[in-house]
C-alpha cells in the first residue's frame, strides 16, 4: 500500500483545494447529536450538526495530518437554507492563507458546505498547525 505524505505547514499553498467530502446526515448522526446535545425534535438540521459535518470533512480532506493541531478561531456565515436530517452535506475544503508568526504555523482553511445544490454555510477554520 502506498504511504501518503504527512500534511505539514510547508505543503500548504493559498488557493489549494483539498476536495469535496460528502457526509450523510443519517440516523446514526442524529443519534450521536442527541447523545451530546439532547433531543432533536425538528426535522431541520441543527446548525451545529452542519458545523460537526464541516469538521469531519476538514479532517477527512487533509490526511495524514500531524497530531496536536489547534483550532484557534472560526468564522461561520450561514445562509437561510436549512437542510433536513437525511440529506447529504457536501463540504469543499481549501487553503485560504498561511503565515508563520512567532514560531507558530497559522493556516486559514476555507470551507463551503452545501446540500441539494444550495449553500448552507461558508467560513474559515483558523488553525495552528503542529508541524
Amino acid at each position, binding site marked *: 500500500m502506498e504511504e501518503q505524505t504527512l500534511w505539514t505547514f510547508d505543503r500548504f499553498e493559498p488557493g489549494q483545494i483539498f476536495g469535496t467530502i460528502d457526509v450523510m446526515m443519517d440516523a446514526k*448522526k442524529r443519534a*450521536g*447529536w442527541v*447523545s*451530546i*446535545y439532547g433531543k432533536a425534535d425538528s426535522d431541520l438540521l*441543527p*446548525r*451545529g*450538526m452542519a*458545523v*460537526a*459535518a464541516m*469538521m*469531519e470533512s476538514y*479532517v*477527512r480532506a487533509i490526511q495524514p495530518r500531524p*497530531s*496536536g*493541531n*489547534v*483550532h*484557534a*478561531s*472560526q*468564522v*461561520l*456565515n*450561514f*445562509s*437561510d437554507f436549512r437542510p433536513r436530517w437525511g440529506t447529504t452535506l457536501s463540504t469543499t475544503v481549501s487553503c485560504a492563507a498561511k503565515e508563520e508568526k512567532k514560531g507558530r504555523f497559522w493556516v486559514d482553511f476555507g470551507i463551503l458546505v452545501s446540500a441539494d445544490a444550495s449553500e448552507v454555510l461558508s467560513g474559515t477554520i483558523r488553525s495552528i498547525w503542529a508541524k
Partner: protein
Amino acid sequence: MLPEKISDLSLQTSHELATSYAALSFDYNPLHLDEEFAAKTAFGAPIAHGTMALNLLLQAIENAFGSKMGHENLEIRFSAPVKVGERITAGGVRADDGYSVWVKTEAGVTVISGLLRFGRQL
C-alpha cells in the same frame, strides 16, 4: 422584538462525551481523547473539541431565535481550552451591531468569545 439576551445553555463535558463528539465529527485528535498524549502537551490534560463548545453556543442561539434566523454571521475565538470534565455554559447579550456571545467554564473562564450578526432584519 429581539431579545436582550441569549439564555444560558450548559453542557457537562466528560471523556464519554468527548468520545461521542469525536465519532460525530470524525475528529480523533489525541489531544481530546488520550490522557498520556495530552499530558505531554502544553495543556497537560485532554481538552474538549473546540466545536463541541461552539455547537453548544449555536444551540443557545437557535433556542433564542428559532426559525427567525437566516444569514447570520458568527465570528468567534477559542480563547482558552476546556479541560475534559469541566461544565460549560453558552450565552450572549445584545450589542450595538448584533450580540456579544460567549462560552464560559464554571470558574468564569471565557473559552469562546465572539460576535453574532444577522445579515437581514429579524
